[in-house]
């Protein structure tokens, strides 16, 4: 009597669990694919950003190269390093 009632209950429970886990597998593989897609987009974005950054870095270092700065300071702005007579040392 007891046995007869219990077995279908266990079977039903197991079946339900099986179904839930199957759906969970579907869900997780779907989100895996979705996240992977997002990752790809971000990778591409990073690649672009990296390209942009390194180009800016090169541009900046060309514009700010000591040679160029010296040239502009000397020729365009008429600057020069002060001679030692022109320097006053302020001691606190």
């Amino acid at each position, binding site marked *: 009597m007891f046995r007869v009632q219990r077995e279908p209950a266990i079977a039903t429970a197991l079946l339900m669990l099986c179904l839930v886990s199957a759906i969970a597998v579907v869900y997780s593989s779907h989100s895996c694919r979705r996240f992977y897609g997002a990752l790809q987009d971000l990778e591409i974005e990073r*690649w672009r950003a990296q390209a942009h950054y*390194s180009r800016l870095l090169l541009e900046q*270092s060309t514009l700010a190269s000591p040679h160029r700065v010296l040239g502009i300071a000397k020729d365009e702005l008429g600057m020069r390093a002060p001679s030692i007579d022109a320097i006053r*040392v302020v001691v606190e």
Partner: protein
Amino acid sequence: MSRQRTQPVEPPAWRFWWLSLLLFALGTLLIGRLVLIQAIDKDHGAGFLKKQGAMRAVRLAEIPAYRGLITDRRGDPLAVSTPVVSLWANPQHLRDSDLLALANALGFARDALEAKLERYADKQFMYLARSQTPDQARRVLDLGIVGVRSQREYRRFYPAGEVTSQVVGLTNTDERGVSGLEKHLDAELFGRPGKKRYLKDLHGDAIRDIGVVTEARHGTEIALSIDLRLQTLQHRELQRAMIATGAKAGAAVTIDAWTGEILAMTNHPVFNPNSRADFNAEAARNRVMTDVIEPGSTVKPLLLVAALEGGAFTIDTLIDTSPGRMRVNGKMLSDPRNYGEISVSRVIEKSSQVGVTKISQAVGHEPLLEVYRRFGFGVKSAVGFPGERAGLVPNRERWADIEKATLAFGYGLTTTPLQLAQAYAVFANQGLRVPLTLLKRSANEHLHSERVIAAEIAEQVLTVLERVTGEHGTATRARVAGFSVGGKTGTVHKVGAQGYIDDQYLALFVGIAPMNEPRYVTAIMVDQPLGNDYGGGAAAAPIYARITEGVLRLRNATPRMEVSREMRLASLGAEQ
């Protein structure tokens, strides 16, 4: 008849059984085959089939990783990897009708493209254009020509160009370091490409990515101890001097004696690292570390150390150098003139051969050799640069008197210019030697410094070195306005096939500044200066002065001016 028709005909029993048996056998065969494939999985089973499927559709692609940035100590980039795109084509898939558009987009002549296609007619892969900027590549890819694909890569650029060429070094087309620091630090700088799996269609185009197999690991960023401003200044002054003296080669190095950091290191001749066509091995050498030279008179301060440590001499002990020449083993050693009786300090100031010989005879060669070794001669520096040389401190059983004497003049042993700077840094750092480095040290890094000589002896050597640039010294041209500097010149005969060459010299200068707070050590080497100004005092010392002036200004050293105190008092008085 009608009765016969309605009467069902009973089929023979064997038919049913045969049919059942047949169906059952077919079913068993199918199931058996399934079991063979899935469960037993022998030669042509599931594994084999999966592999065959993957071979046709799944491909591995590289995820590119960038090589680490190299910057100077202030963060200015010295080597940058920038993304580029290489365009390639599968000649089997290209259509003739697309060729004109493709050639135009690439900037080729149509004929040239066709000729290239001819050569690759039986291949599956052909580069169209390498290392294109992403924008250039996009213009071609946007045409959507069948068979044209792109590949992401990185290319190394050196913004500082020839200024840092020998120090930073080069990479090959695979972005691996092949010379200089690029080689030395390759393990940290190298970006390890990752791998990902994707599904492709019949034409080889990716349909979708399946997943990452291994993550790409990007290279780490490395800050050098080099200050690009100083490096540029040193480079400019060295090049200028090379042109003025007509010298064959030159090298200069500036180190911060307190931290052991190399602030600037330049060489002549130079090459442009951004153009591979320009490369020549002679110009790629970092002479500061890879060239061994006889140091000549620049090692005389080390004789002074040996003399002071022996206890028999002070810097004021008098040495009789008259008549200004002496004979050792039949070789005549002579001074420019008879200096008479002069102090040990003056012997170094004047670089008197006779005086040095007399001191070295009294000290003996063994203590001197021991001092040379203690100061790091004959051993590579801590930098670990590719191709760095150790130099040679001789180790012999029997010594002729002349060999003992010339050892004190800096002949018969070899060092690199860097080792000379390292030795002088000991004087600047109160007798402590800090391991040298080309990497930036953090402010609180523990320095594994070791005591080489007593602080008092370092102090006395500095006093003598300061006098060398004074009125009576050999290096008046090393002086820097507003600061007191110290140093020692060296003029060395070059060695040829037949021994020392009479008219080919190496001019050397090693200096320390500022003397009130000794910190920056600069060594200069000029290889074969032409004309009459071939000596260390005439060819190398002026370069030292110009470089040091810039070093002190850029490092914010306070000028030491005798007049300043009076001026300050005067201005204070005016206010009251």
